[in-house]
């Protein structure tokens, strides 16, 4: 569909104020993403070296845990992958939005916004799952 240049007259603009806010948001989002990546890296290293010891430790408290060890590790890998995806989307938002503003590239800027949208969707689904667990744990505390 061809876009009429006059359409921008009726659009919100990324003015100086909004541009600066987006730039600062990108800066902090990038910092957060880098911290999350580092945490994931450290966790993966700890898991690689200590997985066997961890399973042995748990098996002392819950006999028969050795059999479920593989399942637990699979769950941990899925959680780490989801956490990595969230961090990656945050990093993508940070870099693309900032570069889009610097280069005055509307497509790149929109890609950054798309990453922000996807970040909030993934994070939203995770918080919805989290609240279900919080609800059940609080409920079990209340009836205990």
């Amino acid at each position, binding site marked *: 569909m061809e876009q009429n240049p006059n359409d921008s007259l009726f659009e919100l603009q990324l003015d100086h104020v909004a541009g600066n806010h987006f730039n600062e948001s990108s800066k902090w989002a990038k910092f957060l993403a880098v911290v999350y990546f580092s945490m994931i890296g450290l966790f993966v290293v700890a898991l690689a070296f200590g997985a066997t010891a961890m399973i042995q430790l748990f098996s002392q408290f819950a006999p028969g845990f050795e059999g479920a060890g593989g399942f637990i590790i699979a769950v941990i890998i899925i959680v780490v992958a989801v956490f990595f995806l969230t961090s990656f989307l945050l990093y993508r938002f940070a870099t693309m939005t900032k570069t889009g*503003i610097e280069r005055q590239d509307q497509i790149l800027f929109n890609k950054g916004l798309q990453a922000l949208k996807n970040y909030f969707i993934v994070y939203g689904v995770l918080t919805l799952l989290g609240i279900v667990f919080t609800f059940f744990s*609080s409920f079990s505390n209340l009836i205990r």
Partner: protein
Amino acid sequence: MQTNDNTDNFFNLSIDASAKELIKTAASWAKIIAITGFISASLSVLGAIFNKPAAGSENLYATGGGVVGALIIGGLTVSINIFLLRFASHTYGSLNTMNQEEFNEGISNLRVYFKFLGILILIFFSLFILGMLFFILGNTMGQ
């Protein structure tokens, strides 16, 4: 020379139809995250308050500490999510009313949200490193 920063299109970028849809979806999910954050914080605090302690004063102290901890974490969660909710409502509203100032206000709240999270992480890491240092020092002095 007087310039009007609020209206000058300093950047040649705009919130076109595509960007508008993306921001609307992001704002809707941000609202869901903020509301679930408020509910989660309330549930955690309620859970800590009504957590029945077993007999013994040590457990009472532990419960008191748990309530204080839950209140601190809950307070921080609510504070962070207020900015996220403001981002969601201001940005979503501005896209419907085409109000530039409201849009800027919404993006400003997104900025504060990320900044708040970043500063919190910095504080937690500093406390963690400090704790580790004291732990190592204590172990070294004890030997």
